[in-house]
């Protein structure tokens, strides 16, 4: 290995870092360390002049390694790697020390924060000495796309991709396309017809020459990797059809929560306690009637059913508040003299046009009643004969502070939206993960919301988390754009920080094969060693720590690199 010549750059980040970390002291402290050729500090390292500083120094001082102490590598590692590359050194010969998010922003003692910064920079310097150049690798992209789920998200993505002239395989579990929107009458906040919106979309998908639709079909197993996936599906129990595609979109949506488990609401006991979905059926049928065939004189709408409650689901389903207001308008239009009670825990009107929509409902003669989700749920009881209504809701009304009884003939439960039953089968097949709420996990919650950590696999619509139609559609188009971009390029870069087996050390025990979550390792019978398929490998490093022979190298996270980093953080104490 050529002698490391390291350039170290400490960023002020304006005052973000320099206020709490003595950047000058850090620079001086590391200046004289072995292999450090130059050490500097600068106001904004990520700015163009900051990057130019690195680029010029690399050329001028013949640097072959770079360390930047600044924000989190999750933010600017790529920026600085690219700068290194511009200056002609391999981008992996770079290391970042996180002295902002994990230092200046979280500590209050300047001396301590400065000492910590020194430790972190020393660790980065020690580590980078053992960095090795890694070469970018590319694989070709099959231009077909598999879309799982034919709701508004899946349909939108399918059309976007097919209209660009590329093949789409659209797999839908149920016997029809359209997803939930197909079950709705009107949509908030404009009260426009859901049917008039979804029908033409379904029709265009059905007739599109570039889209093959497979109804009543599910995906059990997908093999391959980004650019080159494969699956076998059997349609109507017939012979399996083999499909090949380069990218995958999961758009399996969510399903309504079953409120039977909430004893307070007596759903199923009382036939006129119905879910939002059952109410949509009535709206689509054109008449709001109780089981007795009568128009209800009192209608209550209960929010947050199974949502925002530790006993059921802690998260907010996001769309039910607005859907509830949509029902207010629809009930008022159909039953001008009915009493309407909005029984809510919080009113969430976060979206474009939502607050205005909320304001409109307040002119519709509605009684808004608030309950405390955490203290006591409203209780739906059978009414007495003398009560002149079917049921009575008992509740502690929060704003008035009083226990009240609400007469009702029909109750609409705004049920939570939760993961599909077979969601585990889907995530396993396509190699993505679920969060604690069983929503698909995106690659980055802010900067990469439709990609996943598995290359070529995208998630859109509500399976990624509850959302309304505009947000679902936006994600669908975003994923389509990403995929069309990859298809246009023809090839895509793949992970380079993968594992590889040193065949001289491998004893053939195959421990690694069992631990790899991506089935990336196989056994070579001829040479009696394990081999990593570097295209499938995601670089998690699990195999490396499991291998009893120390035969696996985790590139960019080698034992030597990590051990040097440990020595580095401890070296100053």
């Amino acid at each position, binding site marked *: 290995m050529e002698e490391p010549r390291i350039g170290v750059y400490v960023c002020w980040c304006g005052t973000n870092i320099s206020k709490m970390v003595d950047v000058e002291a850090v620079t001086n402290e590391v200046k004289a360390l072995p292999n450090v050729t130059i050490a500097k500090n600068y106001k904004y390292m990520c700015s163009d002049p900051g990057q130019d500083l690195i680029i010029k120094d690399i050329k001028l001082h013949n640097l072959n390694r770079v360390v930047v102490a600044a924000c*989190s*590598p*999750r933010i600017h590692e790529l920026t600085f790697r690219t700068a290194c590359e511009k200056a002609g050194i391999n981008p992996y010969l770079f290391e970042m020390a*996180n002295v*902002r*998010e*994990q*230092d200046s*922003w*979280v*500590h*209050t*003692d300047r001396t*301590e*924060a400065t*000492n*910590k910064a020194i*430790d*972190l920079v020393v*660790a980065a310097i020690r580590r980078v000495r053992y960095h090795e150049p890694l070469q970018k690798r590319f694989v070709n992209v099959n231009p077909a796309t598999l879309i799982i789920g034919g709701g508004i998200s899946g349909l939108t993505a399918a059309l976007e991709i097919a209209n660009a002239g590329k093949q789409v395989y659209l797999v839908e579990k149920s016997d029809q396309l359209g997803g939930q929107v197909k079950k709705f009458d009107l949509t908030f906040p404009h009260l426009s017809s859901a049917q008039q919106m979804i029908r033409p979309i379904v029709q265009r998908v059905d007739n599109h020459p570039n889209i093959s639709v497979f109804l009543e079909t599910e995906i059990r197993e997908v093999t391959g990797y980004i650019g080159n996936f494969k699956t076998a599906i059997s349609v109507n129990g017939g012979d399996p059809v083999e499909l090949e595609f380069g990218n995958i979109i999961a758009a399996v949506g969510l399903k309504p929560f079953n409120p039977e488990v909430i004893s307070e609401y007596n759903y199923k006991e009382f036939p006129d306690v119905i879910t939002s979905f059952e109410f949509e059926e009535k709206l689509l049928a054109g008449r709001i009637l109780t089981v007795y065939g009568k128009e209800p004189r009192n209608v209550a709408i209960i929010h947050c059913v199974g949502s925002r409650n530790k006993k059921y689901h802690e998260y907010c389903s996001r769309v039910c508040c607005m859907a509830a207001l949509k029902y207010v308008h629809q009930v008022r239009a159909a039953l001008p003299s009915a009493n309407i009670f909005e029984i809510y825990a919080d009113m969430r009107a976060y979206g474009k046009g939502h607050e205005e929509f909320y304001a409109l409902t307040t002119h519709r003669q509605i009684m808004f009643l608030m309950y405390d989700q955490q203290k006591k749920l409203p209780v739906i009881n059978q009414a007495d004969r003398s009560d002149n209504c079917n049921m009575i809701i008992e509740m502690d009304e929060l704003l008035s502070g009083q226990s009240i009884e609400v007469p009702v003939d029909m109750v609409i439960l705004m049920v939570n939206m939760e993961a599909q039953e077979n969601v585990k089968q889907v995530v396993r097949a396509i*190699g993505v*993960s*679920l*969060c*604690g709420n069983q929503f698909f*996990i995106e690659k980055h*919650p802010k900067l990469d919301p439709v990609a996943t*950590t598995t290359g070529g696999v995208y998630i859109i619509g509500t399976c990624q988390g509850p959302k309304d139609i505009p947000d679902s559609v936006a994600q669908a188009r975003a994923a389509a754009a990403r995929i069309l971009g990859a298809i246009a390029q023809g090839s895509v870069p793949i992970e380079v*920080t993968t594992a590889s087996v040193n065949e001289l050390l491998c004893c053939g025990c195959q421990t690694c094969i069992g*631990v790899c*979550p*991506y089935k990336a390792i196989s056994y070579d019978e001829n040479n009696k060693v394990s081999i990593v398929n570097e295209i499938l490998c*995601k*670089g*998690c*490093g*699990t195999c*490396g*720590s*499991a291998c009893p022979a120390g035969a696996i190298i*985790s590139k960019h*996270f080698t*034992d030597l690199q*990590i*051990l040097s*980093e*440990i*020595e580095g*953080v*401890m*070296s100053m*104490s």
Partner: protein
Amino acid sequence: MDFRPKIVAFLCNWCAYTGADLAGTSRIHYAPNIRIIRIMCSGRIEPTFILKAFQQGADGVLVCGCHPGDCHYQEGNYKCLRRFKLLQKFTRQMGIEKDRLRLEWISASEGKQFAELVNDMTKTLLSMGPSKVKSSLEVEHLNV
């Protein structure tokens, strides 16, 4: 000089490291005793790393991964958990008290929990005093 415990922490990139970054973005203050090392997945943790940290003089070692079921690599954290139990047995036999080595789950959104964890561990280590591993290992010339 008063005792300032030093904690070496191994945080997985997707959850715990992101959670620690979030503590920063939310400006949640915590004890400055921790030195964080980023790994891609808690499944990458090797006993050598932990022993190395103790040998270098760490008073405590913290390993943080995603919550079970939340792992970006599907199941890396389960593997870490299984191996960790074994390791804890081993370190205890080496005379490293149980509380000096902790495995905790921190999600990408748990910045506050991360800060609390660091404070809590610092407090425990303060009451325990410095680790004696470094000096005892030096005597035995054990090199890990």
